[in-house]
């Protein structure tokens, strides 16, 4: 791409990277809450399965954020494209998993 590089005086790439990090931390809180029932005494197989799915979702969210941090390091930063949609989809998946946790 032959886009002209405008100096990033507003540190927007760094602020965006930190915003991704904050979001991963929020997702970690959700992941831990979804996993908690699996550690209750006499937890059923379904609780363990939901916990495993929640951990996988959390790992995917973390991986997406790290990939995006690499994309942000370029001059100019690469556009986010599908990372954004994937992130929102997995978040909705976490909400569904949370519903399963509540209904179990």
């Amino acid at each position, binding site marked *: 791409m032959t*886009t002209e590089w*405008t100096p*990033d005086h*507003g540190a*927007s*790439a760094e*602020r*965006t990277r930190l*915003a*991704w990090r*904050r*979001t991963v931390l*929020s*997702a970690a*809180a*959700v992941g831990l*809450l*979804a996993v*908690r*029932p699996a550690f209750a005494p006499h937890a059923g197989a379904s609780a363990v399965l939901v916990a495993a799915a929640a951990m996988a979702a959390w790992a995917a969210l973390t991986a997406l954020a790290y990939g995006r941090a690499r994309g*942000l390091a370029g001059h*100019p*930063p690469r*556009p*986010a*494209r*599908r990372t*954004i*949609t994937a*992130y*929102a*989809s997995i*978040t*909705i998946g*976490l*909400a*569904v998993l*949370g*519903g399963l*946790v*509540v*209904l179990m």
Partner: protein
Amino acid sequence: MPPAPDSGSFVTLAADNRRVFGALRQWFDPEKTESVGQTPDYRFSLANERTFLAWIRTGLALIAGGLACAQFLPPLPIEHLREGIAIALLVLGGVVALRAVDHWARTERAMRMGTDLPASRFPAVLAIVVALGALLLVIAVLMRAAR
């Protein structure tokens, strides 16, 4: 076969379909569909991305709140009220995430086309919903204290 004269509804249906699938395609690949317009200043795109992330965090906080309600609240006097509150928060979180990606895609498109950014009533609606929920809980707590 040429379309029947009264196929107006089919035409609208097709247009509707195109619009829906266009919106979906925009979510998944905004760059490819938007050969329209021109690439905006990357700093604007990053600001849009941070706004998306702030909304996602809002959604994640609602989801975490729902899970915490289900796990840490004692059973409430009304049957299944605890589960109801939890599910409501989870649904709200999912809706916030869905709307976040839609708003991000529409903003990205508006920036490419150089048009006005999309206006939205969603923040006001969410604020009112959260305020009403808080009000209900205040009433519940007061009723409990008065008993």
